[in-house]
């Protein structure tokens, strides 16, 4: 199996081809072979890189260096200096005047490696999760000590606001602002809730954090409690994560034993208690108001909002609800300061993001990288390329409620801003990589079946919409669809996203919407020709029976 270290992308639009892109491409292959680097570097073509007047353009990953115009004579230098020795060749870099928007972000990224940066996962997989000694050895509880003994609650909140940390649960709301809302809301008691009901298919970063580094969550919740003047916290862990529950339970007991939780923490007057709570299997409980309902012992159905939990949360009291990954970023921010954190990631999306890489790649797993790396980098560098050398067809980002990114858009940087502009959700950080053998109708069917099962049934558009969409897509997958279904599916998805009560209904049809947008022809083949181009859907069997 090939371990890919670097990638060379050669622009291959008409203009580039006219100016010798093909020769440049072949020159790269030869030179790379000459240096014995063929098994570490891939050379591919991309369409227009948008560098008018700088064609052919060559982009080298992971450095994201853009060269152009590149001639056959330049190739030797680029390969020797950049790919062999690792130095970007400044003299050959393209002028950055006219870049296509999809690579405009590279300006800021030039020369910066998308290496993993571990803030959230700094201890997971390094320490023994049962040992508070290990946690303290790796800088644990320094943040809490600093906050409690050297900072006022207002200073803690200000530091978090300054860091630019955005919630990592999916919505990306600024964490500091959320804390300040709760701190400013009258009413007592106040509560801190850690949302560990991580149910988005393909997402398991929170499980990894809790299983590998449970003390960090407890420390962060205690800091949050101090900041908003709360004395009780709840961790809602989904029922499917018994190991995470066990480790949190143990960590709470250990922390209490060492005076890091309970009464008079760090010898101060501040006290804080944490109660773990196990869910019982409901995707919807990841929605914060449904989670609160469930904590109160009811069906996990979302409340109408506003009021938001910041004013009317658990038992009607002001409540902070933070995701596990958000909280896990907290100790490092307090320990090292907001400015240190801001240096990581892109200016508008600070810090790192944990991604889970799944599906048809060679290496599945978890990475933590600065905001702003691209899907291509994730797949080729961290995922070590596509399994069985198949071609990439699409990536679903952010779990089942996330968007579908076709292969042609794989150079979009992964950060909240760029993604929002491209109409893509970063969501929970799950990246489900699908190869050419994936049938989009079959995929949509699996995703819609999930939402049909997980819909809580409270509001009509979601309850009926998820069922109807599943029925329609099932019919299409069996070769019994009609072209009118396109309009119908469009209408239902729009209605669901506009008038559903909560995020589940609003996003349930996201994947379907994108599939209809990018892969309409493939869906049509099922309807018109009664053919599933990838041979996945059960059309044939039915035809044989008929």
């Amino acid at each position: 199996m090939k371990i890919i270290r670097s990638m060379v992308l050669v622009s291959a639009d008409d203009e580039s081809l006219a100016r010798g892109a093909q020769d440049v491409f072949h020159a790269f292959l030869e030179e790379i072979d000459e240096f014995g680097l063929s098994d570490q570097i891939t050379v591919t073509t991309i369409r227009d890189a948008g560098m008018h007047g700088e064609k052919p353009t060559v982009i080298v990953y992971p450095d994201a260096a853009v060269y152009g115009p590149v001639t056959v004579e330049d190739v030797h230098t680029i390969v020797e200096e950049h790919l062999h020795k690792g130095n970007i060749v400044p003299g050959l870099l393209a002028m950055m005047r006219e870049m296509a928007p999809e690579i405009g972000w590279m300006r800021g990224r030039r020369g910066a490696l998308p290496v993993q940066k571990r803030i959230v996962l700094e201890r997971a997989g390094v320490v023994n999760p049962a040992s508070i000694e290990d946690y303290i050895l790796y800088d644990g509880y320094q943040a809490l000590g600093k906050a409690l003994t050297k900072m006022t609650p207002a200073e803690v909140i200000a530091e978090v606001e300054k860091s630019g940390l955005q919630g990592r649960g999916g919505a990306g709301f600024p964490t500091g602002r959320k804390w300040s809302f709760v701190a400013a809301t009258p009413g007592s008691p106040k509560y801190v809730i850690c949302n560990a009901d991580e149910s988005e298919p393909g997402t398991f970063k929170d499980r990894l954090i809790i299983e590998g580094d449970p003390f960090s969550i407890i420390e962060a919740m205690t800091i949050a409690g101090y900041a908003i003047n709360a004395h009780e916290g709840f961790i809602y862990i989904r029922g499917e994560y018994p190991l995470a529950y066990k480790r949190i339970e143990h960590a709470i007991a250990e922390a209490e034993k060492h005076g890091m939780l309970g009464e008079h923490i760090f010898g101060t007057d501040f006290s804080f208690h944490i109660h773990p709570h196990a869910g019982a299997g409901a995707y919807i409980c990841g929605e914060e108001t449904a989670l609160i309902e469930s904590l109160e012992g009811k069906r996990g159905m979302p409340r109408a909002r506003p009021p938001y939990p910041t004013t009317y949360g658990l038992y009607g009291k002001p409540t902070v609800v933070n995701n596990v990954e958000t909280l896990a970023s907290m100790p490092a921010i307090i320990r090292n300061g907001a400015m240190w954190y801001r240096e990581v990631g892109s200016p508008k999306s600070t810090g790192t993001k944990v991604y889970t890489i799944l599906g048809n790649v060679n290496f599945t797993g978890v990475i933590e990288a600065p905001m702003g790396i691209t899907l291509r980098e994730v797949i080729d560098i961290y995922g070590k390329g596509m399994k069985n050398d198949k071609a990439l067809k699409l990536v679903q980002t952010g779990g089942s409620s996330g968007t579908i990114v076709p292969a042609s858009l794989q150079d979009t940087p992964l950060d909240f801003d760029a993604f929002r502009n491209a109409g893509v959700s970063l969501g929970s950080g799950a990246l489900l990589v699908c190869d050419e053998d994936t049938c989009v109708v079959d995929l949509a069917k699996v995703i819609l079946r999930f939402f049909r099962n997980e819909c809580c049934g409270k509001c009509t558009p979601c309850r009926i919409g998820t069922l109807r969409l599943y029925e329609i897509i099932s019919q299409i997958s069996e070769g019994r669809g009609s072209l009118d279904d396109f309009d119908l599916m469009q209408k239902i998805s729009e209605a669901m996203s506009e008038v559903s009560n909560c995020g589940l209904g609003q996003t349930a049809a996201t994947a379907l919407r994108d599939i209809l947008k990018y892969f309409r022809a493939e869906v049509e083949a099922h309807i018109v020709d009664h053919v599933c181009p990838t041979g996945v859907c059960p059309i044939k069997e039915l035809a044989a029976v008929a």
Partner: protein
Amino acid sequence: MKKIQSLEDLKKFREQIIEEKRRKASAGKVELIVTLGSCGIAAGALDVLQAVKAQVKADHLDGAVVSETGCIGLCHHEPILEVVIGDQPKVTYGRVTVDAVKRIVREHVLDGKVVEDYVIDATPFPTI
């Protein structure tokens, strides 16, 4: 257990821990670490843990510590076994089978020869 009362206490406690670690490392302490996250367990890490414990017992490695850690993010390679001998760098083995455990203990821990067949050719949370 005396409770930690101040940042000063925390610092002292941490220094004790470091001292303890250093003592163990210089004594050539053998540590065998199995990554026990749920994904590891699904891939058979509990069997590996059993096998490691059994092998340590069978070979009378009385000073060796068998411990656990969380998932290191290389889920593709699960089950994973890490071997630390004294102050030598950590060696990470992937796709470890029950049979591989015996080889790793015999060849690496006892004879000091790293078992190349199972070494993961990527660092945990790979950086490039």
